[in-house]
């Protein structure tokens, strides 16, 4: 069964800054820069602040006026994508 990210943490080797046009994220281990659009940047910050996909989804559902289930799916996709790039560390919840 696929692993579902539950908790997310920005590792120490990642530094980021939000700008009006995008959020720029630097992986200090690889030296690579990554750009997140406004929505992904807001999700990234929500994950950093809350530490969990569920808590971030609750906050973002209110902000974006989008069904919470959809936000959870989008957050999980983003988490996996960022984790593949070494920009997030995930604590997976394996579906039973």
């Amino acid at each position: 069964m696929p692993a579902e990210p539950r908790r997310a943490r920005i590792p120490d080797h990642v530094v980021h800054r939000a700008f009006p046009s995008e959020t720029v994220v630097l992986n200090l281990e690889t030296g690579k820069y990554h750009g997140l659009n406004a929505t992904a940047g807001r999700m990234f910050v929500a994950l950093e602040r809350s530490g969990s996909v569920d808590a971030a989804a609750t906050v973002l559902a209110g902000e974006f006026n989008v069904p919470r289930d959809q936000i959870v799916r989008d957050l999980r996709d983003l988490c996996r994508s960022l984790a593949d790039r070494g920009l997030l560390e995930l604590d997976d919840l394996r579906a039973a």
Partner: protein
Amino acid sequence: MTSAPHSAALGSHYRAFGLPLSSSFELPGLRPAPSASGALGLTLSPRTAVERLWSGGDRDPVWTAAIDGRPCATRLGRSGDYLMSYGDDALFLLSSDRRHLRCAPLKRPSAPWQRFLLDTVLWSASSLGGIELLHASAVLGDAGVVAFAGFSGGGKTSLAAELVRRGARLFADDILAVPPTRSELRGHPGPGLMNVPRTHGDPAELGTVLARFDTEDWVSVERAASKPHLLVALCLLRRRAGAGPAMRRLAPNVLDVLPFAVGFPHLRGRSRQRFVHYARLAAEVPVYELLAPFGAGPAAIADIVEPLVFGASPRERAA
């Protein structure tokens, strides 16, 4: 290892690239400054002493370049000191505690190695001491420091020289120091020296010509800033066929500024500081794109940026 020089021997005090300096010999083009604790002490040393004192190493140089037709290199020693060479003309040894710079000129005349010292060696010491540097010329105008970042050959120096002719003060010729700080971002001036291309005007209008090199004059500029000032604008000088000259304000992010950051690639531990620092600069300092065709001279570009420097256009100033 290297020991600190006796303070009584360091009778001349200056500042450059954010570094307080105390020197046993006079440095051309630098304004005297009050003595400061923690200053980098500059002394003249025999080459044999510098070679003996360097802690040595067999790694590749951390930086190489060809300057004035001479191979130049910076080598990191085993104990953290740095040996910088300027062809066969001079050696410079920066101590591991960054408090002492031994200078071993091997050849006369003195102007070539002094120019290398007051440019490359001092900004290297500044960078290695933790100060962030931009590849930019800069002038001090009515509101503060206006910097012109660009790559070599883009016309940074010629533009700064033109603005100095129009009344601004030189702040930096090629490297602008902007130390990390929790308060407002301030530029720290480089030496009051310029390498002025011989194709643009009479260098004597700017100050005293110290030496003449192949295509440029080394000039001690009369109107030069000597103290830190607020950084009020950063212009990214870009050349493009058929464009401008024109200037527009950008909504920048850190990636617009980072290409102009100067630093040593082996200091990977500085990457976080550099990112945070230049992200802050991009967010807090107005950044402009200054677009000009390849053939545009400094006068045409200066006309465009005058409002940033003097608060008024050339026509308004004339009136």
